[in-house]
């Protein structure tokens, strides 16, 4: 079937991204917005726009009823959930199905199987994908945790099964710490995710966060589009991503890519997805989690492969086979992305919402800016603090870094604090330039 009208169930830069892809495909777009987002760029760009609720996300961007109301009354063929909000909500995907509206993403079953982190690990183990040594499923009580701890070896990481995106994680350096933290972790998980289930994993060190982008159609074809190195993180939130990963050799890339494809096949996946792995200095890699949605950092993969992932997601949702095979995917050049947030790096990254005055994003060959900001736009304190994603492409890593530095220096944002100065310093740091940093980089080094 041909999708002719899409409702974008999201806001900010990703909503703009999706509207752009739809425009190019000749698909009509319907935007939804909360009251404070009335003047947002995605609202202005869409063909139609409807207010779906007040500020709180639960009453607007997470409001199934209002969103489905708009979708059905405006006769949309499909809904693109973007990332966050309802993107990995299996119930929402199911409701779309029952209203005969295509959910641009995987099936509710695939979302469920990968959304529950403990279940996902088990599924991966059965699919022959290497997993981090740890508990076999959820941990019951403190005694069980202590027994497991002795088996696994310290330090140990306690993870919420319903968590994800870096949330719901605690580290126990020894048995005493484990005993203290396990009950607290369970209670926290219940409160934050509505699910008290936690599992244990060996806390590995010197690891890089390397993820593989896959895309699958509804005919059983799965292709991987190479990796992204997302090790530069602050409090488990990614700040810089790059493709390819500077330490990956072709055979490890192939092994990881194949593991990712096996994982997708194991859950009958369709659409875009990302397999997150931890890569050790010895070249050993371990499955961490699978994100059953398009990710924030998808542009770096687009830059090195030439594939428009959003368009491909829509094509796959329509029922078309993938428009390329694994052999067609060639990684070309180097891409880096900096997430520019409205935060003050001098004050411990304190959020800095407010009205943007003068605003001038950089340009030039190999420079891409994905943003919903504009002069006079107010970054509200109610949602995430992202101003823009600055992405560069160049033939080599060295040139990409030089280009990113040049682009950051041109990026003018007045009226609010941004993390641009932080990124500029980061790109001068010898450890970053060397390429051999791990996920503790920002914890261990002063920028």
């Amino acid at each position, binding site marked *: 079937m041909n999708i002719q009208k899409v409702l974008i169930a999201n806001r900010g830069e990703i909503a703009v991204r999706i509207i752009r892809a739809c425009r190019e495909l000749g698909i009509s777009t319907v935007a939804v917005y909360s009251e404070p987002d009335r003047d947002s760029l995605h609202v202005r760009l869409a*063909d139609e726009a*409807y207010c779906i609720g007040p500020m709180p996300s639960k009453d*607007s961007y997470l409001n199934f009823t209002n969103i489905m109301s708009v979708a059905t009354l*405006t006769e949309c063929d499909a809904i693109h959930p973007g990332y966050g909000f309802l993107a990995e909500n299996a119930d929402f995907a199911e409701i779309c199905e029952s209203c005969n509206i295509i959910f641009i993403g995987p099936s509710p079953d695939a979302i469920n199987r990968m959304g529950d982190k403990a279940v996902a690990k088990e599924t991966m183990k059965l699919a022959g994908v290497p997993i981090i040594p740890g508990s076999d499923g959820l941990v019951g009580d403190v005694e069980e945790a202590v027994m497991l701890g002795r088996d696994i070896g310290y330090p140990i990481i306690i993870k919420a099964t319903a968590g994800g995106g870096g949330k719901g994680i605690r580290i126990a350096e020894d048995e005493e710490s484990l005993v203290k933290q396990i009950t607290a972790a369970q209670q926290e998980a219940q409160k934050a995710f509505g699910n008290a289930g936690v599992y244990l994993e060996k806390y590995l060190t010197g690891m890089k966060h390397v993820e593989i982008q896959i895309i699958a159609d509804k005919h059983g074809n799965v292709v991987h589009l190479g990796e992204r190195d997302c090790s530069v993180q602050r409090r488990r939130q990614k700040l810089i991503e790059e493709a390819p990963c500077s330490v990956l050799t072709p055979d490890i890339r192939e092994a990881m890519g194949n593991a990712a494809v096996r994982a997708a096949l194991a859950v009958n996946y369709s659409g875009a997805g990302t397999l997150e792995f931890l890569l050790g200095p010895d070249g050993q890699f371990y499955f961490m989690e699978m994100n059953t949605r398009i990710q924030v950092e998808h542009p770096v993969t687009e830059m090195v492969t030439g594939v428009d992932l959003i368009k491909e997601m829509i094509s796959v949702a329509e029922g078309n086979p993938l428009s390329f095979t694994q052999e067609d995917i060639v990684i070309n050049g180097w891409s880096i992305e900096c997430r520019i947030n409205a935060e003050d790096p001098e004050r411990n990254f304190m959020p800095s919402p407010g009205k943007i005055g003068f605003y001038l994003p950089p340009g030039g060959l190999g420079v891409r800016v994905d943003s919903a900001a504009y002069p006079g736009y107010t970054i509200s304190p109610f949602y995430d603090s992202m101003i823009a994603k600055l992405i560069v492409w160049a033939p080599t890593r060295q040139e990409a870094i030089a280009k990113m530095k040049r682009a950051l220096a041109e990026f003018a944002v007045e009226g609010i604090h941004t993390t641009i100065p932080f990124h500029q310093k980061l790109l001068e740091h010898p450890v970053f330039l060397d390429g051999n940093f791990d996920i503790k980089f920002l914890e261990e080094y002063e920028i």
Partner: protein
Amino acid sequence: MFKLSEIKELIKLLDQTSSVHELEIESEGMKLAIRKPDRPEADGTAVQATPYNAYPFTPAPQPQSVQQVSYPVISEVPPAQQPQAVAEGKLHKIVSPMVGTFYSAASPEMPSFVNVGDRVGEKTTVCIIEAMKLMNELEAEIKGEIVSVLAENGQLVEYGQPLFLVKPE
């Protein structure tokens, strides 16, 4: 006097945009009003895109000849929507608490819940908003007199969209 080519251009522009549904121009003693149909069966231009259209506009002060063109979408300003000349600041707006379809009556055969001029109490049902096959009755939540009905029967209404203007008691 509007030239035919100018009118055609205006119609074309109006057709291409989904955010403007009514256009009224006065020039040299002539008034031209262009209004898009908003029945759901119309091809995609039917749905109201923004809340701007819900606000009542004041009628022209003196009578003038309205230039009519034989194009299906042109019509005069519907008299039912013209409000009384009451200062907006004193009026209470009843707004939609959800996204759905506005119905002025319990069913097509029944009379409207309220009309302009009716007095309402806090618990008076003023309309039904249908969302996902569920009918939600909306109560006035204020005592007063209905001054204006801002939504049309069968129209898609969004969260916060003004539906009625009430002169509070």
